[in-house]
Every structure is written in C-alpha cells, then in structure tokens.
C-alpha cells in the first residue's frame, strides 16, 4: 500500500484525512483504488482524457511524476506520494 498525502484543498473529499493509503503497482492503478474510496477526488485530479490535470502535481518519493512515467510511474509498498496543487495564498 502506497501512502498518499492529500493537500488541504482536497481534504474535504477524503473526510479530512491527510494521509490515505491505496494499492496498485503504478500511480494510475493506485489512484483508481483511491478513487474507489474517495470518488470526488477523480474529477479534481484527472481530466477527460484520463491524464493528470496540469494544475495538480504529483510527486512519488519526492520526484515529479511528469519527469518520470506519469501515471505509469511504478509504486511499491514504501512509496510516498505527495499531491500538490498550486497554492495562491500569501499576503492579504
């Protein structure tokens, strides 16, 4: 089971859980498992073509999956997956 870290703006879709686990040998299959538990996440993370949305970055073991194999990036039981959309907040 890989561990997913859910960002604050998506936690309404994971019952406010920060860390969730999902099984799958690739990022794509683990996400499918994750969407089974938390269906509302799919639309936030995946576009109509089944690709990762451009404003959501996913890091497997601190590396951006876009510089690896995208949704085909291999996962193992120790993989740590960080989901990170753009954050606006700063000053006001």
């Amino acid at each position: 089971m890989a561990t997913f870290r859910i960002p604050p703006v998506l936690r309404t879709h994971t019952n406010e859980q920060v860390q969730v686990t999902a099984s799958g040998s690739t990022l794509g299959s683990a996400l499918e498992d994750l969407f089974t538990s938390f269906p509302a996440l799919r639309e936030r993370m995946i576009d109509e073509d089944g690709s990762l949305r451009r404003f959501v970055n996913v890091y497997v073991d601190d590396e951006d999956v876009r510089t690896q194999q995208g949704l085909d990036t291999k996962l193992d039981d120790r993989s740590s997956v960080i989901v990170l959309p753009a954050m606006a907040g700063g000053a006001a």
Partner: protein
Amino acid sequence: MESQIEVSITDAITRRDQGAAWVDVREPEEWAASRIADTTHLPLAIAVARIVDQWPERDTPLNISCASGMRSMRTVQELRQLGYTDAVNVGGGIKAWVAAGHPVESSAGLTPQQLERYSRHIAIPEVGIAGQQKLLSSRVLLLGAGGLGSPAALYLAAAGVGTIGLVDDDVVERSNLQRQLVHAESRIGMSKVESAAHALAEINPDVIVEPYQTRLNADNVFEVLDQGWDVIIDGTDNLPTRYLINDASVQRNIPVVHGSIYRFEGQVTVFQPFEGPCYRCLYPEPPPPELAPSCAEGGVLGVLPGIVGSMQATEAIKVILGIGDPLAGRLMMYDALAGTVDTLKLRRDTECPACGDGDRLTGLIDYEAFCALPAR
C-alpha cells in the same frame, strides 16, 4: 621568566605563528579603517579586563598592538602587573606593520556603527565584511507587504539590505495584525507600504525603502521591475499576479523567491530563470478558483507566514551573497501540524512557454482571464 617587553614586527609574526594571540587595542574607527588580519579587537578601555576573561592563564603568549606602540605599551605594563609574563608590545604598531610592507584589511565604507550593527554577520566567514557590503548595496523587491512580506521585510531591513522595494495597494486592517508584524494597531487605516516603511526605518536607518502603492498589472509591472532589483520576493496572494510576476521576471532574468501558505502548510522555492524551473514549469495552468482559495477564505495560522517569509528572506540573502545551495529546482514544503519538512525536486520544462528552449512568450497576457479559464 619574563619575555622582553617589546618585540619587532618580525618577532611578533613568529610569535603569532607559534600560537600567540594578537590583540589590537585601538578605537573602533581606527580598527574599521585598517587592521592586521586575524587579530582580536579590544579597545583600550576594556582591553585588560577582557583579556583576563578570555585568556585567564597568566603564561598565555599575547601580542598587543595599537597604531604606533604607545597605547599598547600601557596595556602590556598593566598585564605584566597582573602576572602575564608573556604579554609583549608590538613595537611601532600597525604603522610599522604597514611600513614593513605587510597587508591590512579594511572595512572600507562601513562606519563604526555599521560594524557594530552587523558584527554577527561579519563574524560569519560566508558573509564577512565583503558580504555585508554586498548586502548594503543590494536591492530586493518585495511583492506584498502582508503575511509573507512582513517577516521578509523586517529581517532583510535588519540584515542591512540597502534598498527594499515594497509593492502593495492595501491599507492596514485589524485582521492583518494576527500575522503581519511589520504593521501595528496604531497604523490601522494607513497604507501598508507606508506603515511598513515606518517600521523598517525604526529598525535600521541604513535601509532605503522604495514604496509602490499599487497593484501590479501588465501595464505597470516592467516600470517597477526595471529598477535594478537583484532578487524579487513573491508574497502575493493571488494566482493572476503570480503568473504575471513569473512571466515578467523570466523576461527580465530576475530570480524570484516564491512563498505560499495555506492554513498550516507553506511552500518555498527559488525560480532562477533558465537555470531552474519557473512557476509555469511547475504549474503550466492555473487551478480553478475553488481549488486555490486565498488565506482570507481558508484561513492561516498566524505564525506560518512568519516561518515561510523568513525562509524567503534567507533564500534572498543566499542569492545575493552567492552562498550555499539556493532552493532552485527544489520546493520545500513545511507542514506545521505534522511537524514535517519535505523537499521535492522540480525540473525545468524545456517546452515551458515562459522559459523553455523553444518559442517563448515575449510579452504579457491577460492574467485575470488566464486564471478565470475553466480548467481543461
């Protein structure tokens, strides 16, 4: 057995090489103007007391010098009375040192007050007098004088960054004071740039503040950016401005220290144009507004911008001084609740429309419209 009470420059150097401490008892302004490297500065009035504290062993070998050897001789005589058998006067002092052709260090340009103010910087080998002079002649542009801009402005002013540009069109409100420490209850209603300028002047009179009471847009951004800034600190609170700053700073080749915060989480990275990724490499498209709530909507722990803004100030100083490993190509993510820091690797996108290797954006676009587009 006592040493002879006065030695030549040549003998003083030999003694130093064999481990003798070297104390210069001149006044701070003389020390600032020129000094022998690796000597300890203890002005005459406090020299003996401080030597007794620092080197209690009475047989410690000590070279004592001043400008010409007169004042230091008095110090040596006092030390001898206290039992320091190996304290010697450096005959002829720094004048003889210079006459013999030896080099001196100078804090050219730094006043005695500055030497005192920045003494903890000067003591760091990576900064030193040369680094402090670099800071004093540097120019940092702060975008936003709010949560992130407050600590960044306070620390950069205290650090002696010579010119700080402040861009913000807001006025101070009571709800800002939970985290924006550059402002104060007494300045509610004042423009943020004026309020911040007031606070910075109180901290460090060396710093020149250039206020820009405006909101950056495609029409005015280059007017502000084209003022010779060494680095930009992005503490803005909205995505259109972040994309605007990105495109404009890439086109002008100015590094941007990016910070963002939400509730208990913060992120810091450095966008060094063409060396590391830019904001568009990281996020080619903006998220829909509901996925990028501001702190006004989602809230933020007041301490968090203090931490993230201070990290941004640190990165800015590293960039100015060219020391350490700036967070270029790395994003530091701090989770205050979990008490964890993760450092993610970021890569430059060779197909990035702003900084990629192909055709690049040469002007600016309508960023409000860009960020309002429905997500694809």
